[in-house]
């Protein structure tokens, strides 16, 4: 009887705090990854796989907030990443008393400001034509950073190099350290994004996406909402840009943030799934891992038969083919594909044979 009472109480408590338990479990997993992973993996895993994966996922989240949740098309994400990177560099260089994290944040803020400016046309231009605004940003920003040496500390080539990655006298320069820095920032940013999206701001964004005329009718301030979306999205992109420059590449030139990178981020968002927060992670895994995977397989099994040039072309064709395949199969992205598969798996033994 006592025993039954205890189990009942415990069971009820577990029920009531189920949500919080999930959170705690999640936090423990994340902490384990943050602290434990550096001991398990090697340089290659961090420098060439995890860090670009995380940074691109963060950029994808940024773009998703704008395109997936607010419905504003943008093809110039790399420009805002560039602004974030160069701004963070400038702050860290000129106000070296600032902590690195603060410089990153300020870089993001500058990117947000620039993003809002290029977001102004969205008030008047709708639909596919809006890409002109972000394309203008893309090429203009590239030009500005190449043309004016002030941004790169008067380096004749316009190249910036990472400042020492030291926060509170803890040096993050090693691959493991860079991974931990990136991981922590990305996790925090995602949590914030999660909260934003489920708040009133997020709902406003989705209202503007679904039908902005109706949204205006019920009193949502359209211009403010759109500009907010541009600003927040550019902040995330700026942060991702700073991480890309400092935690991943180490040295970067303005053309490192060219239109190909913008297309990559767009791919991540579309393939991962518009309007979801873990879609960008899936998309980033697709974009970062798949080419490497194809390359490893090709090199291991096919390098005897074909020369490297042909091998590379075949991988390209395969990659393009897979993109199209996934888009046909599940146009709403991998996130939905996985959710549908999860549902199917859950119901599997019980579904009738087709």
């Amino acid at each position, binding site marked *: 009887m006592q025993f039954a009472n205890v189990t009942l109480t415990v069971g009820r408590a577990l029920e009531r705090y189920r949500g919080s338990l999930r959170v705690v479990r999640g936090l423990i997993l994340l902490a384990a990854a943050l602290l434990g992973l550096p001991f398990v993996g090697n340089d290659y895993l961090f420098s060439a796989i995890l860090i670009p994966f995380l940074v691109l996922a963060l950029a994808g989240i940024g773009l998703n907030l704008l395109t997936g949740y607010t419905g504003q098309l943008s093809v110039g994400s790399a420009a805002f990443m560039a602004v974030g990177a160069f701004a963070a560099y400038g702050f860290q260089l000129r106000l070296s008393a600032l902590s690195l994290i603060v410089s990153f944040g300020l870089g993001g803020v500058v990117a947000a400001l620039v993003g809002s400016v290029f977001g102004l046309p969205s008030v008047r231009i709708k639909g596919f034509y809006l890409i002109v605004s972000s394309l203008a940003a893309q090429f203009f920003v590239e*030009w500005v950073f190449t043309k004016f040496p002030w941004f790169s500390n008067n380096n004749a080539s316009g190249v910036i190099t990472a400042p020492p990655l030291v926060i509170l006298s803890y040096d993050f320069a090693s691959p493991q350290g860079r991974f931990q820095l990136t991981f922590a920032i990305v996790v925090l940013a995602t949590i914030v994004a999660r909260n934003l999206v489920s708040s009133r701001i997020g709902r406003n964004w989705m209202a503007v996406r679904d039908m902005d005329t109706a949204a205006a009718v019920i009193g949502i301030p359209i211009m403010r909402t759109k500009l907010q979306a541009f600003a927040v999205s550019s902040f995330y992109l700026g942060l991702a840009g700073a991480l890309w420059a400092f935690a991943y590449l180490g040295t970067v030139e303005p053309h490192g943030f060219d239109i190909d990178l913008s297309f990559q981020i767009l791919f991540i968002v579309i393939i991962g799934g518009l309007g979801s927060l873990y879609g960008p992670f899936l998309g980033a895994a697709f974009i970062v891992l798949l080419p490497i995977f194809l390359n490893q397989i090709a090199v291991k099994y096919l390098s005897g038969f074909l020369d490297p040039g042909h091998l590379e072309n075949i991988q390209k064709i395969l990659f393009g083919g897979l993109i199209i395949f996934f888009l046909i199969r599940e146009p709403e992205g991998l996130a939905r594909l996985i959710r549908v598969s999860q549902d199917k798996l859950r119901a599997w033994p019980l579904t009738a044979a087709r």
Partner: protein
Amino acid sequence: MGFFAEVLIGGLFAGLMYSMVAIGFVLIYKASGVFNFAQGSMVLFAALTFVSIVEKGVPFWWALAITLVAMLALAVAVERIVLRPLVNRPTMTLFMATLGLSFIIEGLAQTLWGSQVHGLDLGVSEAPVKIGSISLSQFDLFAATIAAATVGLLALLFNRTRLGLSLRAVAADPIAALAVGVDLRKVWGLVWAVAGAVGLVAGLLWGARVGVQFSLSLIVLKALPVLIIGGFSSVNGTLLAGLIVGATEKLAEVYLGSRIGGGIENWFPYFLALICLLVRPAGLFGETQVERV
């Protein structure tokens, strides 16, 4: 004054070349609502195929015919395999699919023909010809004639043939077109084929101008502002927009660029397009969309 005229005319000619590429986009957008980013790769594929066949010793006109057939086959294959399953998807998805397609076409082109650079000789020299106080390149005049002829042919196609009529019907309202018995699939296939042919002409002209190599597919980034200014669905608009973009771009580079450091050609057309859109949100000749709550 002579210098200004030379820059202006050079810009107009360049603009015509941009229009050649943009027309391919417009055709496809008009018929199937798809923004075909792979047009650039198709231009590259056409140029590369032609040049490689010619270098193997095949005479000019035969090579042209073979390349034309190849382009038609490619275009129709693309329409059937890639675009048809994606009908009715959002614009962004289609755009991404064509981006993936451009990878495939580029990879295919390089697998078939290698990654060497080639020169393309169409038999017209670049040497300048003097008209009054201005010297014009013979090749530019030739290219302008071809471009004008293409636009003229397309205008004939749209306005005088049955296909053109079906195309305009499909562009205006696909459902209504279906209702009166227009075979959408045939129209789409034919339009893509025509776009492929236009791509071939653009590929030859551009290839002769800059040499046939991979960066040919970057031409598409120059054609985008032209498309945006002209509106996505008007061939005449594209032509006019091309002239505007070409002229202003060159004039800005020379007169404005020398003040602020040069190299502004890449972003100036986009800013121009942005301003045009702010004034007319659907492009100069585009169709305004009506939104209903």
